[in-house]
């Protein structure tokens, strides 16, 4: 598939208190970012299990991004500190297995950072589009004919 036609599937996990509100603010301010991004609301970034991320790749996602409150501002005080450790280690492991490290990302977006949210999503979609289709973590059974 030529790059110009390729539309990546992007799953974005957003914490309810900061990043989801940041995404809402991006909308309120009419800040455009690609429609390839679909947001899943979670109470806190620390709710995101590595299993969910792998599951997304299995089912055909080309990129997974996780957004949470800035460290120190977590609604639940410490949740995103655990996220930070878990995801650093998970991403490092994926890289170790030779899976493109650009397909996964963690970003801290506060409820006031609508512009940042849109910018982050634009950049992430661009990066993933350049990488092309997810091949290394695909499940052939889940591919559409």
């Amino acid at each position, binding site marked *: 598939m030529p790059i110009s036609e390729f539309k990546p599937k992007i799953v974005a996990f957003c914490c309810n208190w900061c990043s989801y509100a940041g995404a809402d603010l991006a909308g309120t301010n009419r800040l455009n970012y690609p429609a390839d991004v679909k947001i899943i609301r979670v109470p806190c970034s620390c709710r995101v299990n*590595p*299993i969910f991320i*792998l*599951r997304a*790749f*299995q089912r055909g996602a080309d990129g997974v991004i996780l957004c949470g409150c800035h*460290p*120190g501002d977590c609604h639940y005080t*410490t949740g995103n*500190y*655990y996220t*930070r*450790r*878990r*995801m*650093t*280690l*998970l*991403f*490092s*492991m*994926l*890289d*170790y*297995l*030779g*899976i*493109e*490290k*650009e397909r996964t*990302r*963690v970003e801290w977006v506060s409820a006031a950072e609508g512009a940042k949210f849109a910018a982050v999503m634009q950049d992430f979609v661009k990066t993933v589009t350049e990488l092309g289709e997810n091949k*290394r*973590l*695909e*499940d*052939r*059974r889940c591919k559409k004919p």
Partner: protein
Amino acid sequence: MQEAMKKRAKELLASGEVTRVIGWKKNEFDYDITPAVFESAEEIDRDFRYDDFCGPNLSKFTFKNQKNDTKTLVFLKPCDTYSMTQLITEHRVNRDALYLIGIPCFGKIDIEKIRADGTDGILSIASEGADVTVKTLYGDKTYVKADVMAERCLACKSKYHTIYDELMGEEGEVMETGRFNEVEKLEAMTPDERFGFWRGELSRCIRCNACRNACPACTCESCVFDNPDTGISQKAAADSFEENMFHIIRAFHVAGRCTDCGECSRVCPQHIPLHLLNRKFIRDIDKLYGEYQAGEEVGQRSPLVNFTTDDAEPDIVRKGGK
């Protein structure tokens, strides 16, 4: 050492201090050693073994065969003490029902290395100091022990016992034997090379679950891969994705808890170097969050259930600055 251990075990049984002994026993072949429970002096006299083939980590076996109402004697190699300490930290074994004896270990022999030399029809093997003598149907052979030692023992992390009620032999020390060399080699490869390497390894996985069954950190009441309610249960590795998924998640679940005992790789019938996944996590944790050895002391806080406010950002992976 074996005789001293037998003597002590029988003493403790006779005094009523313990009613069961967990150790190793020989099966048909000298090199075919399995963990076993002994309940009488006769059984001990007949079957008890401790030699350079007693590789299995008795901590997991103890976990599976624990009894709360009676006291059990367990012999632990340095490796096994780390696993045992970790199990106690996680409340998976009842310390009060155990009598632990620390025993020395001088490295275990990997029978596959002897076989790989074309040695067949093995009748018996004896290991004495640095020499390993193999009697076969076709005559005797002698090896230098270091040449036939298991890879995990060549990169032994410690001869120190983290827990025991009683110690037999001399206490050893924590060692630096370059156990991360292979991880570093992989890290130095290009992503494509790494991907190729791991595909080559993991595609051999037959999902026999031997790694999980032998692993002293895998003690879940029910594994997420066995439980249909999790939505991710798998019985067979039907797709390359599932090979990856199983091993990534397994390594992630034991990250910060894995003591690097190497049982996973030892028992893998497909010879997949699974310990390299666990060691990657250990190495990352050491580098990013400070040196941490699981099973060093009871009550440790694993790095994955801990944090500091100035931890590295996940970006560090993408930016390659580690």
